[in-house]
Structures are given as C-alpha cells and as structure tokens.
C-alpha cells in the first residue's frame, strides 16, 4: 500500500517522498517508540536488560567469563561487529576451559523474541519450557538484551493476566 501512496503523493506535487515499505511491523519489531492506544500495553521491549555481557567468536571463554562475573551475570551473548546475535553462553558454558574459544562452546542460533511481543504469551511460553530468561533481538538480528522470567511478573502480575 505504501508504494502506491508514495507515488500518489509525488503526483500531487510532493517533492521528497520516501517509502518505508517494511513499515509499522518492522518499526515495532525493532523496539522503537510507538504512539497510540497500544503504547500502554506491556511488551518485551520495555523490560529488556541491556547490560548482559557480550563477547566475540574468537575470544577466550575465560575473558568473557570474567567480564560476566564482574557484571553479576551468569550468561553471556556473542555478537558480530554490527551487534547481530551469533550465539549464547549458559552458566555451564562460561565454566568451560578458560582457554577455549567462545565459538566452540556457545549455543548457535538460540531462540529469540521480538521486542513487540506480549508479556503474557511470552510468560506462558517460558513456563511451559521452564526457561528462566530469553534473548530479544530486532527483526534484523540485532541483539537488544535479555528478559528474565521474574521481570514478566512485575510488568504484568499473574492476577492481572487471569482477569484479562
């Protein structure tokens, strides 16, 4: 629809028209600001913890593990130069031989969530699988942060979900 609108605007004399074809879905999936009635709805993007330690594929686990411990985290992520998520290290993986390369012990292709996903649905997904935290990325794979299960209860208590 937007290509037609953009062309029509030009035909009406508008000089600089840009078609953001990926549109609203893309914008919201990146966790960018939203206006409107849905802006008050709790979504994962509002709960993301961005201070999770990150490392590179070719660094040693010991270095990443030390950074994680110093920051009070029991997990870490692996990113490329553009901030795209490549892998995830659990507490056990961080306890691997410190001289091992991160790439050898990370979980490749972990499950990720988008920042515009709902709290209740995500909590249910995590409970079913007994998952304590999830990774949040934008639609282009850029890592945004971690959301922990207990954060979801703060955002939307179980009672509130039951009444909804």
């Amino acid at each position, binding site marked *: 629809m937007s290509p037609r*609108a953009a062309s*029509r605007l030009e035909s009406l004399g508008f*000089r600089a*028209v840009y078609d953001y074809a990926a*549109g609203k879905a893309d914008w919201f999936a990146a966790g960018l600001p939203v*206006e409107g009635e*849905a802006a008050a709805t709790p979504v994962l993007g509002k709960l993301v913890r961005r201070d999770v330690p990150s490392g590179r594929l070719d660094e040693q686990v010991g270095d990443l593990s030390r950074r994680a411990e110093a920051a009070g985290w029991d997990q870490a992520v692996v990113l490329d130069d553009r901030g795209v998520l490549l892998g995830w290290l659990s507490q056990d993986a961080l306890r691997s031989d410190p001289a091992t390369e991160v790439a050898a012990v990370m979980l490749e292709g972990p499950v990720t969530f988008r920042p515009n996903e709902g709290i209740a649905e995500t909590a249910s997904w995590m409970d079913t699988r007994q998952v304590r935290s999830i990774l949040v990325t934008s639609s*282009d794979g850029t890592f945004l942060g971690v959301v922990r299960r207990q954060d979801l209860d703060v955002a939307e208590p179980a009672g509130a979900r039951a009444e909804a």
Partner: protein
Amino acid sequence: MPKEILRKEAEKLIEAGAQVLDVLELSEYRESHLPGAVHIHLRRLAEKAREKLDPTRPVVVYCHDYA
C-alpha cells in the same frame, strides 16, 4: 519515483524533522503508529494530503509491511 528506504534511513529522516504519513485504516492508526505520524487513508490522499502535509518538506510514508 519515490525512494524506498529501510528503517535506519527512516529513523534518520524522522529525527531530522521529516513528516510521517500512515496510510492504514484509522482503527489501525489509533491502535498504534510511528511517533508524530499523520493519518490519511490511501483512498483520501488526493483530498487531504495538502491539508495535512507540507509538500515542500520530506515525507516518510508507511503502511503495515511489504504486503
């Protein structure tokens, strides 16, 4: 011909003061839209565009997605 842009460029243009146009249904716009977006449904564009938008300034147009 209008230039198709990706999110990063849309962000830059909006930050620089470009006008933002949502051409979805009004109910969809009311539910959620990009910050500062003006709503004109595609069918009413010819009638409303010059009333709600400045033709001399950049406009970023969007709908839901590529569909």
